């Protein structure tokens, strides 16, 4: 029997039982939809993280307090890093071009009647080139201002928009947590990166931040900018040696700080998102499996119900192979069509997530191809047994079946 004829026969019997066919498909639709949406979410998270890491600038090492337990998960905030540590790094570790000490917090900024809550980073002028920031208007901090805890602030373009609207910000006085600061510059826009917006923040001298605004005695991090072509492995060893000596850590104890470089962060991000994707994909695959079992169930019912039809077909000359193909193709049509509808559902779900939540989703064409072929395989796998049962029916018994 021609292949096209078998497909026509299959379609006809599926349309004849439209509701049942749809219910059989539903499992696959939901399964494939879930797989597509979940993978899109995983892929989106991955790209977001990668983008964020790559925007941070090259040649960057970040020293943070606390032990590194596992791939950047900290044992809690520890107070170990000081300004002197930061200064010592520049003078004593070869390959270090410049460092930027940093502390952070959340503040309320007020200008005339307007209020805006944002992140503040206390740091030095070196932080800007290290983190790939530039000043669009005005100027950055002077050494003098950092040394003297001057009340000067750099604002991100989004922050400026919210506080000043169309007015000129540079030179104005704003209240940061009730303290007067002079706006000395506006940052150049970097674009929203999803998890936090680098265009919405304030930068002040770290000395001012620690003593006057946030009341901190220790640094939250030291950003280290390596010389071009410097050997980061040797630098990490050098920084580790120096900080252990300065912190008087006895031989055999763990570091009370951790150093990460960009490659590490990319690796960590990759590992995290890979795990995330596998986990989501795995959960979704289970629903696909359940959908397959649903198809098998329906196909078994169909075969039993159509025993007499199978008997008739055999009497007029259908071979086992023809019957097998007929039912197998029927199962594959159900799962394949379910897969196609599932892809539509998954894509729509991903787009809705993208539209209405902060998550980014990326639909990889490879995932669609994979989902479609996987659902067809589900049809073959779960359709095989019912189809084989149909094919193996004894013609006399099948004809007698009431």
């Amino acid at each position, binding site marked *: *029997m021609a292949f096209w004829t078998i497909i026509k026969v299959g379609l006809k019997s599926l349309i004849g039982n439209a509701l049942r066919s749809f219910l059989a498909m539903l499992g696959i639709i939901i399964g494939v939809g879930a797989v597509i949406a979940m993978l899109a979410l995983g892929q989106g998270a991955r790209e977001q993280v990668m983008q964020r890491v790559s925007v941070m600038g090259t040649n960057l090492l970040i020293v943070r307090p606390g032990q590194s337990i596992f791939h950047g998960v900290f044992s809690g905030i520890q107070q170990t890093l000081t300004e002197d540590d930061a200064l010592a790094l520049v003078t004593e570790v070869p390959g270090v071009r410049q460092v930027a000490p940093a502390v952070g917090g959340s503040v309320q900024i007020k200008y005339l009647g307007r209020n805006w809550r944002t992140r503040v980073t206390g740091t030095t002028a070196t932080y800007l080139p290290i983190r790939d920031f530039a000043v669009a208007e005005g100027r950055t901090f002077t050494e003098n201002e950092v040394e003297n805890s001057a009340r000067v602030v750099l604002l991100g373009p989004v922050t400026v928009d919210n506080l000043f609207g169309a007015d000129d910000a540079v030179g104005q006085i704003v209240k940061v947590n009730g303290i007067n600061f002079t706006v000395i510059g506006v940052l150049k826009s970097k674009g929203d990166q999803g998890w936090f917006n680098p265009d919405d923040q304030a930068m002040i001298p770290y000395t001012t931040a620690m003593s006057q605004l946030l009341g901190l005695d220790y640094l939250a991090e030291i950003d280290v900018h390596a010389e071009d072509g410097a050997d980061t492995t040797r630098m990490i060893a050098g920084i580790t040696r120096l900080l252990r000596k300065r912190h008087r850590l006895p031989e055999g104890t763990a570091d009370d700080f951790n150093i990460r470089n960009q490659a590490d962060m990319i690796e960590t991000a990759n590992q995290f998102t890979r795990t995330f994707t596998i986990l989501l994909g795995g959960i979704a695959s289970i629903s696909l499996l359940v959908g397959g079992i649903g198809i098998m169930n329906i196909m078994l019912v169909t075969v039993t119900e159509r025993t007499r039809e199978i008997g008739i077909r055999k009497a*007029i000359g259908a071979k*086992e192979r023809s019957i097998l193909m007929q039912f197998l193709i029927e199962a594959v049509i159900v799962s394949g069509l379910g897969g196609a509808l599932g892809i539509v559902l998954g894509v729509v779900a991903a787009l809705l997530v993208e539209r209405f939540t902060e998550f980014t989703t990326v639909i990889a064409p490879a995932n669609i191809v994979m989902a479609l072929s996987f659902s067809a395989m589900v049809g073959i796998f779960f359709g095989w047994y019912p189809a084989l049962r149909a094919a193996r029916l004894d013609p006399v018994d099948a004809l007698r079946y009431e």
Partner: protein
Amino acid sequence: MIRTTGLVKTYHLGGATIRALDGVDLTVEAGEMLAITGSSGSGKSTLMHILGCLDRPDAGAYVLAGEDVSRLSKNRLAEIRNRRFGFVFQTFNLLPRLSALENVELPLLYAGARRAKNRAAEVLETVGLADRMRHSPSQLSGGQRQRVAIARALACDPAILLADEPTGNLDSRTGDEIMALFGVLNDAGRTVLVVTHEPHIAARCRRQIHMRDGRIDGTAS
């Protein structure tokens, strides 16, 4: 055309063993019209299933057109059913979702025939249903359904027609019409075997064999 010797078929029902066929020797010449009669349980249906290659005997030989078919593979048997036999059943056994034309087309599709639709239409015309081709079986009367079934049996131009109680579900006038149609087909050279328990149907065949307890216990012509 058909020659069987010592055909035996046993069934196991629960613990009991039933000898449905207990040594059947039968010869049917090409072009014959034969009735197989007997009460229910006499083994006439089983005999027909084996003659029609729907089933294989447990013992004995079955030579069809010079070929021993009693030990052939299921695939070969399917081909033989397709090319050499046309089946007509008591309950018509049409596929309800298909039109008359599509039902008749079916054996041609399994045979891989070209222009199956044209051939099916031709055969439907010869059984007098040219104007009912697009109807589904449920839109047809019993007699018309049986004509569709006969057309389907004839589609692949088989040498032998096997009819199992073909008039059992029809009123007597329609039954007579169907038997007349078989007569015409037999006159055209086709071998026709009719299984029936109705004497007046059997009487329309040129030869009758009577079965009892899995054996042939009488022949009349």
